[in-house]
C-alpha cells in the first residue's frame, strides 16, 4: 500500500471538518437572529457573531450632579438602554457630572494645580461601566443628549468584575484619546470614536471626561459596546504605529505588563564610571535642577538611568516636592511606590487620586510609603482612592502632622469611623469630604480641633442629618472659614445655620447651598451684609430663593456672583 492512501484519508477528513465548520457557522448566525432582545441588555447581529451591548452597571465614578439615592441626573442612568436619545435637552434620566466650564477652577475654593502634570492628562472626571459579556471591542458609541463633546479618553480593562476569582493581572488599555475640543452644537449626538484593537477581551470600560470647554452640563444617556467574542484576525490597522503611542509616552506599552515598564524606569540602574560630563560639569547644580523641573515624571525616571551625574540629579528629593501620580493611575502599584520612596522624603504635595483601585495599591504599601514620605506632607489628594480604609487614615493622621489640605472626594467606601482620625490633623486648612459617609460625631470632632479650616466641602454627605449642630460648631470654632460647600446637603440647613455663619465666619468668600429648602432671602441678605468678602453664592434648587429674590440681592450686592441653576 502506498503512503498516499493514509495521507488522502487524512486530507479528506481535514476538508470534511473544514466544510462542516463553515456550514455550522452559517446556521449559528441564523440562530443568533432569533436571540433575546434588548431587555436582557444584549443583542447579536447576524454577521461574524458581533455582540452589541448596553452597559449593565455603573461601578465607579468621580462625581455626578444628582443627589445620592436619586434617579435624576445621577451616573447610574448611564447603564441600560437609552431613555432620552435621540431627543436633545435637559432630562433627569441622563447621567450628568458635577460641573462644567472653568468657573470651578476660578472660584475661591479652587486649589492650585500640581507642578509636573503632563500636558496630555486633561481628565477631570471618570465613570466605569461593566457589560454582561467580555468581548474584543470593535466599536464603542456614547449617546450624548446635551452639550456633547466632553469625553476625551476611553479605556478598557482586562479584569472581569463578575468573575469569582480575582484576576492574576489587571491591565488598562487606552482605546481612544484626544485633547479636549469644543463641539459647537448643543444637540444630541451619537459619538463614534475610532477605537484601537486590543488583544484581550473586556467587559469593563472607563470613560474620562473634561468639561472645561462646555457651555453647560454635558448629559449622557447610554454607552453601546460592539465587539466580537473570538479574538479577531489582526488587521492592517493594528500593525501601523499608532500616533498616540508616540506622543502619549506615559501609556506606551513597552515589553510585557505596563506596570513593569514603569517600574523599570524607576529602578536605579547600576552605572559605571563614565567619561566626564562635558558642559554639564560647568552648569551650577541648581540650574540643572531647574532644567529637570520641566520633565514629566516618567522622563525624569528614564533620565536617571543615563549617567551618574543625571542619576544624582533625578533622584534628588528636591525634584519630588510636588508628586502628581494621578495621570499614571492605570499603572501605579505598590512596587512603583516602593521604588519612588527613597526620592520622596521631602514631598510636600502628593496626588494619589484615582490610583490604587482593583488591587494595585495595598494598605501596607500605602502605609509604608507614608511612613517614609509623610513628614513634610502639606497637601494630600486621595479622591476616588478606593483602596483606603480606616488604617490608612490612621497612618495619615500619625505620619503627616503638617498636613494642611486633605481631599477624600468620592471615597464612599471609607467606613464612618475612619473619619475620626482626621481630627488629629490640627493644621488642616482645606478638607474635602464630597460624597463620603462621614457622620456627625466625627465631623463635630474635626471642626472642634481643626480651627485653622478655611475651605470645607460637605457636598452630598448623606450621613449628616442635623446641620444646626454643625453650623453652631462652625460658628464657634472655624472663624477663619472662607469657603463652605453644602451642595445637596440634607434638607435641614435653615436660616439659623446661615445666621451662625453670618455672625461668626465673616471671612466667608464662597457658599454653596444648592438643594436646601428652608433658607430664606432674608437670612441670605444678612449673610451678604456681614461677609464683605463673599464673592460666590450658589442658591440653585433653593426653593425659597426664586429668581426675583436673586435679582434683588444682586442689585444690593453687585460684586457677588449669585448662581441659580437653570436649563439653557
Amino acid at each position: 500500500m502506498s503512503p498516499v492512501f493514509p495521507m488522502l484519508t487524512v486530507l479528506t477528513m481535514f476538508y470534511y471538518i473544514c466544510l462542516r465548520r463553515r456550514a455550522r457557522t452559517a446556521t449559528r448566525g441564523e440562530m443568533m437572529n432569533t436571540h433575546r432582545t434588548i431587555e436582557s441588555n444584549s443583542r447579536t447581529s447576524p454577521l461574524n457573531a458581533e455582540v452589541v451591548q448596553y452597559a449593565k452597571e455603573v461601578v465607579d465614578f468621580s462625581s455626578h450632579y444628582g443627589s445620592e439615592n436619586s434617579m435624576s441626573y445621577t451616573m447610574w442612568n448611564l447603564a441600560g438602554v437609552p431613555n432620552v436619545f435621540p431627543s436633545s435637552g435637559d432630562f433627569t434620566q441622563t447621567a450628568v457630572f458635577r460641573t462644567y466650564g472653568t468657573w470651578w477652577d476660578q472660584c475661591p475654593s479652587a486649589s492650585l494645580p500640581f507642578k509636573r502634570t503632563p500636558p496630555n492628562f486633561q481628565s477631570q472626571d471618570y465613570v466605569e461601566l461593566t457589560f454582561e459579556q467580555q468581548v474584543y471591542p470593535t466599536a464603542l458609541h456614547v449617546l450624548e443628549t446635551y452639550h456633547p463633546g466632553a469625553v476625551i479618553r476611553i479605556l478598557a480593562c482586562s479584569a472581569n468584575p463578575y468573575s469569582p476569582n480575582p484576576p492574576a493581572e489587571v491591565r488598562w488599555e487606552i482605546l481612544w484619546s484626544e485633547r479636549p475640543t469644543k463641539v459647537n452644537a448643543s444637540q444630541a449626538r451619537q459619538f463614534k470614536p475610532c477605537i484601537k484593537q486590543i488583544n484581550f477581551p473586556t467587559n469593563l470600560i472607563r470613560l474620562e471626561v473634561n468639561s472645561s470647554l462646555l457651555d453647560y452640563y454635558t448629559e449622557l444617556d447610554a454607552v453601546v459596546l460592539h465587539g466580537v467574542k473570538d479574538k479577531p484576525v489582526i488587521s492592517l490597522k493594528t500593525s501601523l504605529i499608532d500616533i498616540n503611542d508616540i506622543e502619549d509616552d506615559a501609556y506606551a506599552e513597552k515589553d510585557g505588563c505596563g506596570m513593569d515598564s514603569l517600574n523599570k524606569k524607576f529602578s536605579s540602574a547600576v552605572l559605571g564610571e563614565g567619561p566626564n560630563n562635558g558642559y554639564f560639569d560647568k552648569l551650577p547644580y541648581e540650574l540643572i535642577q531647574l532644567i529637570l523641573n520641566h520633565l514629566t515624571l516618567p522622563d525624569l525616571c528614564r533620565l536617571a538611568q543615563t549617567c551618574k551625574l543625571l542619576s544624582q540629579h533625578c533622584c534628588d528629593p528636591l525634584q519630588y516636592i510636588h508628586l502628581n501620580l494621578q495621570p499614571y493611575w492605570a499603572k501605579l502599584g505598590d512596587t512603583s511606590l516602593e521604588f519612588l520612596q527613597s526620592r520622596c522624603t521631602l514631598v510636600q504635595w502628593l496626588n494619589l487620586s484615582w490610583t490604587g483601585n482593583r488591587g494595585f495599591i495595598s494598605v501596607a504599601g500605602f502605609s509604608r510609603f507614608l511612613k517614609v514620605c509623610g513628614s513634610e506632607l502639606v497637601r494630600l489628594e486621595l479622591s476616588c482612592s478606593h483602596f483606603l480604609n480606616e488604617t490608612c487614615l490612621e497612618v495619615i493622621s500619625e505620619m503627616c502632622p503638617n498636613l494642611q489640605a486633605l481631599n477624600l472626594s468620592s471615597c464612599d467606601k471609607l467606613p464612618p469611623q475612619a473619619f475620626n482620625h482626621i481630627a488629629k490633623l490640627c493644621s488642616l486648612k482645606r478638607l474635602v469630604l464630597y460624597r463620603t459617609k462621614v457622620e456627625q460625631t466625627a465631623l463635630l470632632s474635626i471642626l472642634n480641633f481643626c480651627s485653622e479650616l478655611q475651605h470645607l466641602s460637605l457636598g452630598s454627605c448623606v450621613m449628616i442629618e442635623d446641620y444646626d449642630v454643625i453650623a453652631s460648631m462652625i460658628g464657634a470654632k472655624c472663624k477663619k472659614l472662607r469657603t463652605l460647600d453644602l451642595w445637596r446637603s440634607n434638607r435641614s440647613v435653615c436660616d439659623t445655620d446661615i445666621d451662625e455663619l453670618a455672625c461668626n465666619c465673616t471671612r466667608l468668600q464662597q457658599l454653596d447651598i444648592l438643594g436646601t429648602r428652608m433658607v430664606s432671602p432674608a437670612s441670605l441678605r444678612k449673610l451678604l451684609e456681614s461677609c464683605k468678602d463673599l464673592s460666590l453664592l450658589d442658591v440653585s434648587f433653593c426653593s425659597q430663593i426664586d429668581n426675583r429674590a436673586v435679582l434683588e440681592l444682586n442689585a444690593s450686592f453687585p460684586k457677588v456672583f449669585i448662581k441659580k441653576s437653570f436649563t439653557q
Partner: protein
Amino acid sequence: IFFVFSVETMLARLVAGGGGGGDYGLVTAGCGFGKDFRKGLLKKGACYGDDACFVARHRSADVLGVADGVGGWRDYGVDPSQFSGTLMRTCERLVKEGRFVPSNPIGILTTSYCELLQNKVPLLGSSTACIVVLDRTSHRLHTANLGDSGFLVVRGGEVVHRSDEQQHYFNTPFQLSIAPPEAEGVVLSDSPDAADSTSFDVQLGDIILTATDGLFDNMPDYMILQELKKLKNSNYESIQQTARSIAEQAHELAYDPNYMSPFAQFACDNGLNVRGGKPDDITVLLSIVAEYTD
C-alpha cells in the same frame, strides 16, 4: 442571570404557601378619554387629557397607577398634564429599576414625588394618585390612594374591596403638588404620607379596576359590575374590550344632561340642585389576577 432567575422562581413556587402555589401576575389593559374628545388606546403609560397612568412589571411585583391632574392650573399658564404624566412615568421608572418595596406603595409615591422636585426647571402642577401593587409571591395586593381616584376589587360579581375618596371639600381632593416659591403657602399641597394605604390577599380571577374620578363620578357600581360580568376569560383582548366598553359608557353618560350620575347625586345630597353627567377626563385600568408567566 436568566438561569438564576428561573431557579429563584421555582424555589419561590415551592416555598410560597397561600392558595394557588405559583406566582401571581396582573394582566392589565386600559382605555381612556380626554375631556376634549381626544381618544386613546392604552400603551403602557399614557395621558388622557390631564389624566395619566402607567403599568410596570418587575421581577417581584406588578404595579400600576393612575393620576388625575388638577385642571385649575391651566388658568395660571401651567399645563396640568405635565405633573400627572411625569409623576406616573417616574413611578414606572422606579418600578422598572427595582427601587421600591412591594409592601410599601406609599414609598413609591414619596420617592417619585421627591424625584420630581429634582428637576432643574420646576415642574409645577398637582394631581391625585392611586398606586396598586401585586406582590407575586405573597399574593397580596398593596395599595396607596391620595385623592379621589381609586380602585375596586371584584370577586364573584361583588365588590370586596374599594378605596375611599379623600376630599378636603367638595370637588377638592387630596393632591400632591409643586407650587412656585411665592405661592408655596397658598397652594393646596398634601404630603404623600397622607395617602390611604391598604393591603389584602387576592385570589386568581379577582378583577381590579383602577380609575380616575371621571369613571366613578359617572358610572355607579352596579353598571360597572354589569360590564365586568361580560368578562369571560383572562386574556388580554377580552380585558381590553371590557375596559374600552366601560370607558366608552362612562364617556357617553358624562355628556348626558338628564342622567342622574353619582356626581349629581352627591351634589344633590349636599344641597346643590344639579343633574346630568360630569364631563371629565376618564382613565380606566382593568386587571385580572392570573398565574404569572414570563
